[in-house]
Every structure is written in C-alpha cells, then in structure tokens.
C-alpha cells in the first residue's frame, strides 16, 4: 500500500474522534448547575488567574531540544550511508558530534541543564 493511505488514516482518525464526540454529545445525559463548568481545584473555588508563570526552567530545555532535534535530522541521512561510505563518513560525523558536544558541555557548565 502506498502513500495515499496516509490521508486515509488521517481521515479515519478524525472520523473516529469526531463521531464519538458527537455521538456522546447527543446520547449522554446532561445536567446544569452553577459550578459545573468552573475549573477544578480540589473542590475550592479558584482564586486569581488560572495561570502559572514559569521561570527559565522549561523553555531552556525546549530550546536545547530544538538544537538537538536539528542534529538528529541531519544524522539520519548520515546513518543510512555510514556503512557504504566508511571512513570519510565516520570522520565527518566525529567532527559534527564534537562541535555539538562542545555545546552540550557549555550548557552543562553554564548550569543550563539544571532545572530550577
């Protein structure tokens, strides 16, 4: 089977979820009361904004992740031909990794990998 089927699976999944939700919306019993649609906070009315501010912690990881994600993407073509190209490919990847590991070391030293 070929690529057309991707779109098929996409549609099937959408139909599955959508169908179930629509069905459930009509079939399930409902009731209304004043607090039903309030956010849940252990049974206490929420005070203030339902918003948490985050410090550097999370997004720094997201940034470093992106960098390494690019790296993986570039390594995949290399991985495929590694067997065929042999030495030259090996040297190229060693250099490639070396530079990246420098970055990782830098992040490590700068405590960017310490979650706070």
């Amino acid at each position: 089977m070929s690529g057309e089927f991707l779109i098929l699976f996409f549609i099937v999944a959408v139909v599955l979820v959508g169908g179930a939700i629509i069905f459930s919306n009509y079939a399930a019993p409902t009731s209304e009361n004043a607090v039903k649609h309030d956010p849940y906070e252990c049974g206490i009315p929420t005070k203030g904004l339902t918003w948490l501010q985050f410090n550097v912690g999370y997004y720094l990881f997201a940034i470093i992740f992106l960098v390494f994600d690019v790296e993986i993407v570039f390594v995949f073509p290399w991985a495929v031909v590694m067997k065929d190209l042999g030495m030259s490919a090996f040297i190229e990847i060693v250099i490639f990794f070396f530079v990246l590991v420098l970055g990782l070391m830098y992040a490590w030293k700068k405590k960017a990998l310490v979650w706070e």
Partner: protein
Amino acid sequence: MGVKIKSMKYEDFEDNEGLEVFKQSGGNILFTTLDGIINWGRSNSIWPLTFATSCCGIEMMAAGAARHDFARFGIEVYRASPRQADVIVVAGTIVPKMAPVLKRLYDQMPDPKYVIAMGACAISGGPFVNSYSIVKGVDLIIPVDVYVPGCPPRPEALLYGVMQLQRKIKMESAFSKKNTEAQRTQRDTENNK
C-alpha cells in the same frame, strides 16, 4: 427480574422494595435492549473519586487492596479529578466547612453520577451527631444512592454496597434522561420521606 448480579441471588439483597421504586419502563424493545447494554456498561465500570475524609477512608483503601480487591468489579480506576469519576464514595465525616467542597465536587462530576454514603458519619453523623460542627448525613447536601452502614463498614460491606448500586443502575433507563440532578434530588427526597 431484570436485575442480575453475578454470583448473587436477587433474594440475597436487602431492601428489594426500595429497588422497585427505581424501576423505569424502558419503552419499546429496541430501547430496552439498548438500555440493557448501556446499563451493563455503566454498572460494571463505576470509577470512584478519590475522596476520603477519615477512618472510613482507610477501609475504602483496604477494599481496594489485594485482599478484597475492588478491581474485580472493574472499579479500581480511582480518579483524582471529579470530571472522570462516576461515583463519589463519601467515606468519613463531613463537617460544615467541608460541605461546600463536597457539594462542589459533586456538582463538577459529569452525569450520570452516583453517591455512596459509607459509614455512620456519612449516613447520619454517627459518633459526632451531638457536636457543634457536623453535617448530620450527607443526604442533606447531595442525593445519596446507597447507604452502607457500619463504623467503619467492612470492605465486604462496601463491596456489597457497590453491588446494590449496580442493581440500582441496572434499573434505570438510560435514555429517559431521568438521571439529571434536579429529578434525582426530587426523587430521593420523596423516597426518604
């Protein structure tokens, strides 16, 4: 009888007259079958809210543990969020300060929802009836489906209570929309007159 619980005879249960009250006519054949299927699903998948206030909560935990194993009934999926829970087992004392919280939790649960009052405290205030700070029975706050007396009830008693609840669910008609809150409250107050 339309209500069967595995391994238990109809006569083995208490309060069969009480059960008959809940019986609702299902309409035509199609609806009866559908009702049957849906009620089968509902009664066999009662997910409780993790809600325990005091001693009875420990026995509720014991009921979930290896010896008694709630999971056999398919109700081991304790949900911490009321949005995903079907039944709220009021295990323990409810005091006036807690009452609005309980009410809110109950209100935030999606329909259909059920309540089991577990233990003397939840039924009537139990040992603390004479206190200045007690709710004398959770049925004053939320409609209760099954009362499981004891102080604390044994885990088996809770399992028995759950089976009673299953019977009650099986009596209901899934499509008649009789399960909505206002009607439930009204019906329950009538029953408890």
